């Protein structure tokens, strides 16, 4: 069993490692070009880079987790292995979380080396990247939660876009009906970013985001189990 488990981890690593290289290259390039040329203030470059990663990374990773197995026809083989589906699901999700972390970590290290305490203090830079990383993880859980049944990567990407659009409309609706409320911050991962200005809600936002992410992942795990039964 341990052998299969290790092979599963190895398989995921082999399949996903180019994504780490790709996203690290993109985020690093944006940060290095922006900070070296100093075309904009450091804070603008960092905000752009971190948001870029926070939005793109989960879509990119989420697309390839389950939909690619389906479209390439390897899901049947994977689910027929003598290992519980929730373990397969967990291995994939741990990989996804790690894949999201590495580009952020690599870029953060480069940013601190190039512009730490130059215009923005180190603590703020670290906090900004950490917040964007948390955002990306919660966004990933939304993509997996709503997109696990999709047959192709393109459709999973569309689900991710639909999620972002739904958040936007939610934000607009709350702004119209209840400008002083913070339901949007509680429900969507934008709460992490809004927390920078309103640290008093930090615990509520963090716990609600984690709660939502866990619920979405549990339901995705259950659906994944049923997918195996359907295959059978």
């Amino acid at each position, binding site marked *: 069993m341990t052998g299969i488990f290790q092979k599963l981890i190895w398989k995921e690593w082999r399949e996903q490692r180019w994504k780490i290289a*790709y996203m690290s290259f*993109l985020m690093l*390039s944006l940060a290095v*070009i922006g900070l070296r*040329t*100093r075309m*904009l*203030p450091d804070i603008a470059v960092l905000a752009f880079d971190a948001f870029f990663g926070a939005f793109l990374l989960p879509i990119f990773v989420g697309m390839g987790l389950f939909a690619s197995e389906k479209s390439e026809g390897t899901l049947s083989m994977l689910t027929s292995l003598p290992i519980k589906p929730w373990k397969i699901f967990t291995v994939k999700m741990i990989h996804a979380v790690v894949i999201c972390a590495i580009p952020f970590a690599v870029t953060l290290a480069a940013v601190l080396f190039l512009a730490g305490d130059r*215009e923005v203090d180190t603590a703020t830079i670290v906090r900004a990247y950490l917040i964007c990383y948390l955002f990306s993880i919660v966004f990933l859980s939304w993509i997996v939660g709503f997109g696990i049944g999709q047959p192709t990567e393109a459709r999973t990407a569309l689900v991710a876009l639909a999620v972002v659009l739904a958040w936007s409309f939610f934000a607009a609706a709350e702004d119209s009906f209840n*400008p002083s409320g913070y339901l949007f911050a509680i429900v969507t991962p934008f709460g992490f970013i809004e927390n920078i200005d309103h640290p008093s809600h930090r615990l509520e936002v963090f716990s609600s985001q984690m709660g939502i992410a866990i619920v979405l992942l549990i339901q995705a795990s259950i659906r994944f189990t049923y997918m195996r039964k359907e295959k059978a």
Partner: protein
Amino acid sequence: MNTLKVLLWKEWRQQRWFLLAGVILFWLVPFIGMIVGLYTGEPIDRSLYHMREFVCGLTLSMGGFFAIILAVGIVCNELNSDLSNFWQSRPIGLAQWLLVKYFFGLAVVIISCVLCFFVLQKMFAIAAPSEFYNSDLLVPIYHSFTLLLVYSTAFFIGVLVRQTVNAAVLSVCAGLVIYFLPLVFPPLGFLNVFTILLEGDAYKVKAGIVNLTFIYSMLVGCAGMLFLTFAGMKLNWRIRMEKQLMFWSLGGVVVILLASAGFQLNANLTCEREIPRPQKQQPGEYYVYYNVVMTGKTQGVLAFQGGKETNNKVDERNVRLYRFDLSSQNVFAGPPICTDSYDAREQYIHINALNSPKISDRLYLVDEVYSKITRKRKEVSLSYVLLNPQDKKPMGFKLDLTSKFANVERSSLTACFYKDSIYVLCGPTLVRISLANRDKPEITDIVRSKSEFGQWMFLERYTIAKSTKPLDENNDPLTLRLHQIPGLNDRERLEVTLLLEEQRSWGRSMFTLKDDLLVYFEGETSSLGTWRLSSLNSDQAVFLFIGRLRATPLERFMFLISRPEGQMIIDHDRVWLNGGTNLMVYDIHDPATPRRIGHFATHGQRFFTMVSLPDGKILLGGDKLYIISPPKR
């Protein structure tokens, strides 16, 4: 049933979901937003205005993406399935099949992304005709053609690649190139939709002139893509690339575009010192530095304007004057020297603070009170504030000027200090106030021009450009008509006229004079020109052209000038240009070849005022105070 009907029916069946998604995204959502706005008590014209802005942003950000998804989706779904084999076995020509598919998809794009904008514009024009301008049509006119090219390119790529994800990634690459390559590569600037949308051509649309070069280029591009699509299908061209290679291509395009932009814009100037605002007097207040007046080498007075918000509505506005000393660690020592607040629900106040090194013990203020409802000026007055800390009564007397500026309630007002007098200009009326008695200023002259406009010949450049005679800046002189102020010689008249005129909101243009050199920043082309004074008499000054620096499309996009905060200073052969959200520095050491040597931008902050410090640095005021060192030449 004929073949065309069959094909149309097939396309309808295939594309109706895309149409539904487009209608929901670009029609239904704004419509719901408008209903919500009306429900929350917003007037219908405001609600329509907000929706138009929302649709504008949505189309610009999502329109291209929607066109790519649609084009790739309809092509790949068909060519990548057995359906294509079935249709190829039918007696239907390739051209017919292709054209029906292409134009049906095009119709979906236009109905979704373009038509809604025209409908909203029409509704807005009916609801608020006084606020509707032809320039508001810029987005639907120009961006539609970019959308067509993006759609056509994605359609062609779909035929070549035939794998949905791969085709979509490659189409996004192409879309980035279409949108951004003309921005970073100056020779392709005429294809750049952003600068057309953001500035300049608004004037031309107003004048009924459409940028046909751009439109023709886009249409030629679309026709070329359609032809290539036909050839690709006929000759069975295929691109077989790994998914990873597609993504790396996309990454490469992004990095190349960004690197080109970064190295073209060059370094943002480092802020030497950033000074936060003084402590707020009450919670919930917000403030911006509105005016900075230097009273010594490092001392000066800041005029703050701010307000207090309740439920996102400003109820109260405050004006405060703080004394500052830049040489001190604690820049703002002591409480404000003057505080004034007023009810901002029905009116707002604009303050022009004036000071002369000769009169360092007081600050003169020209106050304008506007009605928030009618947007008309209700009151103009001159007052002063004593700057001596020992004075118990800081606010001095008030001279009412309202009756002098009757019937010009909407014209901009400017004021300047010049040789013991204050000059206030509004519309065609110029008032001179003598400060011979500092405690009791009095009006000495009132000069009325024949008309408000036409001081500057180059304001008539639009008219010249429209006429049959094209503008030849090398030979056409620039003529400034002078204000006929009694008691001043020709040079003094020129200087006062320039001091007053340079503060007026002439579109996004700015100018200033040093000795005989006039520097003129032309807003509609974002170019900096230099002109030499050639002749001067009591009526007019004539300037001859020396040189010009034209901004690249990227510079025009990044350094957009937002008046009325704009301001220009010449100091040691450097021109500092405050564009409201960014500061640009030009070297005019050789006036024939001006060049940009630096810029300073913050993250979303606005700059309202700028003064030159004795040590050559610049003090910039907005949401904070910034001290900027001059860049090296």
